[in-house]
């Protein structure tokens, strides 16, 4: 027996096997800590914020004081810290491992960006301070605009849209405004079948009917079918490039020409700009409007579902219709144009309160300046390289939907799972047990049981090789019919699969204090 100086055993060979299967008394499992809702652990008489007492004074609330309760407990600072730290540990993030979520560009989020956004001159300035006191903030918006315009080769940009879908709305509204300005009422927006769901939703919100354009066997838009659908009722075509199958639309210039010949506009969904930034300028492809997801391409954090930021770049044909507000200059002093000039105004109007997502502008510019144009181009190349490495390393075991090369993401479908009893969903959940966030599944809709893998450029070859090894292991296990590995997966996550039917049938959307 090995003994240390205090007489405690230090070896492990004489310990009981850990595989006892007993339940702990606390419900915790070591570092896997359970956590109740704040409403169950907190107390309404407690507050974790010290606020000065005020002397009695006469209220001026018109007799409308709040007398009803607010059933929200306060937590002391240590309890709050512990609650949210425990919750955080039930989450997967980019900081923890490969996050190959296709179409979402889950790249590393540099912490310099966070630090810069918190500088008091950006984080602690009010949107309605006199513009003379925020010249640096306006200058930053101008500098970001310059980068976005130069990288896309388009002459104008609207910064204010709050996210990608909001940018789409901005772009299609500008198109409709431009058409109306020339007295041209059109009714139809063409979207490929592989489009993000936001595209048809946006078109419908702008009052357009949506028509699908089919794809060819090689995963690209069918140019002939597109041409046949183009007539003087078509307002615009909404196309993602690289498309949602991870493929570059190689006939894009012919598409743009055909669209323009029909008097329509070309809207490009810029969600996948990461694959081509610094390599290809959308302006050279004939694009009239494109939103850019700063939270994808330019590394601002996804934050568990936002906030995003979706600036839109515009061609000359649309630049008179950009939304308010925007930065203007007399050559020396910067100012904001916040309101239109009445009847002569062509702007599509205001899309958001104040001036958009300043916090995201700072982060994106911090990223751009860090990378520089050389680094941005290298990042696109590395993103494409990593995706093609995945494609090349898995194609023998998994069924690639289209022939490579792909761009920034590799698309597989479920043909390789045929007759295994394993579904795309099972496969994705088994990836969780391997320590990875699943890839995007069941999107795009154009292939069966889609699995869309986007590694991004911020993964090393070591990480890629580990990931590929796990994926190959899973693919083999599926082929070997190791169904139990898949059908209940994940086994090692903080939770087993959740009952979504139950959640939707009788929704419980808030905590209610038990009677």
């Amino acid at each position, binding site marked *: 027996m090995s003994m240390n100086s205090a007489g405690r055993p230090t070896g492990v060979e004489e310990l009981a096997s850990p595989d006892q299967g007993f339940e702990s008394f606390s419900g915790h499992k070591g570092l896997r800590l359970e956590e109740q809702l704040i409403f169950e652990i907190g107390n309404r008489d407690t507050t974790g914020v010290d606020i000065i007492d005020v002397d009695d004074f006469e209220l001026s609330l018109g007799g409308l004081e709040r007398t009803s309760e607010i059933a929200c407990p306060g937590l002391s600072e240590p309890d709050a810290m512990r609650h949210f730290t425990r919750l955080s540990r039930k989450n997967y993030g980019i900081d923890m491992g490969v996050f190959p979520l296709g179409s979402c560009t889950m790249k590393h989020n540099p912490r310099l960006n966070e630090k810069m956004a918190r500088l008091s001159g950006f984080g602690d300035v009010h949107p309605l301070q006199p513009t003379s006191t925020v010249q640096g903030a306006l200058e930053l918006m101008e500098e970001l605009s310059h980068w976005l315009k130069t990288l896309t080769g388009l002459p104008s940009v609207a910064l204010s849209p709050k996210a990608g879908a909001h940018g789409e709305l901005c772009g299609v509204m500008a198109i409709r405004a431009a058409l109306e300005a020339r007295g041209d009422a059109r009714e139809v927006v063409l979207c490929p079948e592989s489009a993000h769901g936001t595209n048809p939703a946006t078109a419908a919100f702008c009052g357009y009917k949506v028509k699908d354009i089919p794809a060819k066997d090689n995963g690209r838009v069918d140019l002939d079918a597109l041409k046949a659908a183009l007539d003087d009722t078509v307002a615009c075509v909404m196309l993602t490039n690289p498309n949602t199958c991870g493929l570059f639309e190689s006939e894009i210039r012919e598409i743009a020409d055909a669209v323009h010949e029909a008097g329509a506009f070309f809207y490009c969904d810029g969600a996948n700009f990461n694959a081509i930034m610094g390599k290809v300028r959308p302006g050279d492809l004939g694009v009239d409007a494109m939103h850019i997801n700063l939270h994808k391409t330019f590394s601002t954090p996804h934050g568990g579902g936002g906030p995003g930021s979706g600036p839109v770049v515009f061609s000359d044909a649309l630049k008179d219709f950009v939304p308010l507000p925007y930065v203007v200059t007399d050559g020396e002093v910067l100012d904001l144009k916040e309101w239109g000039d009445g009847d002569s105004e062509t702007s599509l109007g205001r899309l958001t309160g104040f001036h958009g997502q300043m916090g995201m502008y700072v982060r994106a510019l911090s990223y751009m300046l860090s990378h520089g144009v050389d680094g941005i181009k290298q990042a696109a190349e590395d993103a494409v390289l990593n995706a093609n490495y995945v494609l090349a390393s898995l194609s023998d075991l998994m069924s690639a939907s289209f022939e490579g090369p792909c761009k920034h993401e590799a698309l597989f479908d479920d043909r390789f799972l045929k007759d295994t009893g394993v579904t795309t969903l099972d496969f994705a959940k088994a990836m969780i047990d391997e320590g990875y966030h699943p890839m995007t599944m069941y999107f795009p809709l154009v292939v069966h049981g889609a699995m869309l893998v986007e590694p991004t450029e911020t993964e090393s070859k070591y990480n890629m090789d580990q990931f590929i090894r796990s994926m190959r292991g899973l693919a083999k296990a599926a082929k070997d019919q190791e169904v139990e590995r898949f059908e209940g997966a994940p086994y090692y996550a903080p939770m087993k699969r959740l009952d979504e*039917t139950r959640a939707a*049938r009788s929704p419980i959307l808030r905590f209610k204090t038990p009677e």
Partner: protein
Amino acid sequence: MIKYTDEHEWIVVDGNIATVGITDYAQKALGDVVFVELPEVGVTFGTGDEVAVVESVKAASEVYAPLSGDITEVNSDLEGEPALVNTSPTDGGWFFKMSIADTGELDGMMDEAAYNDFVAGLE
């Protein structure tokens, strides 16, 4: 008399009133139904109009009026228990009843045997 449409709706005709629901094949394809949006009583629909929506967790499908006529009654049980569409598609899971404006519209529809053949052809 029971009739079927190629949108997988069944129609039971009783005098001038048609009771409408979705078929067993349709409920299986949808998966667990979580919500049914029903029309208001008294509203008039034409054949092919969108009259209801049936939702599962991951999909939402429109139900089209198989006939033209007025809604006379809706199955309010579905509000509290949408699962009836899965457990009893052709009985307790009915959607709505409507008056039949033109009985001639029934002529073009499938009978049970024809519908079974139709479904077999899809698989």
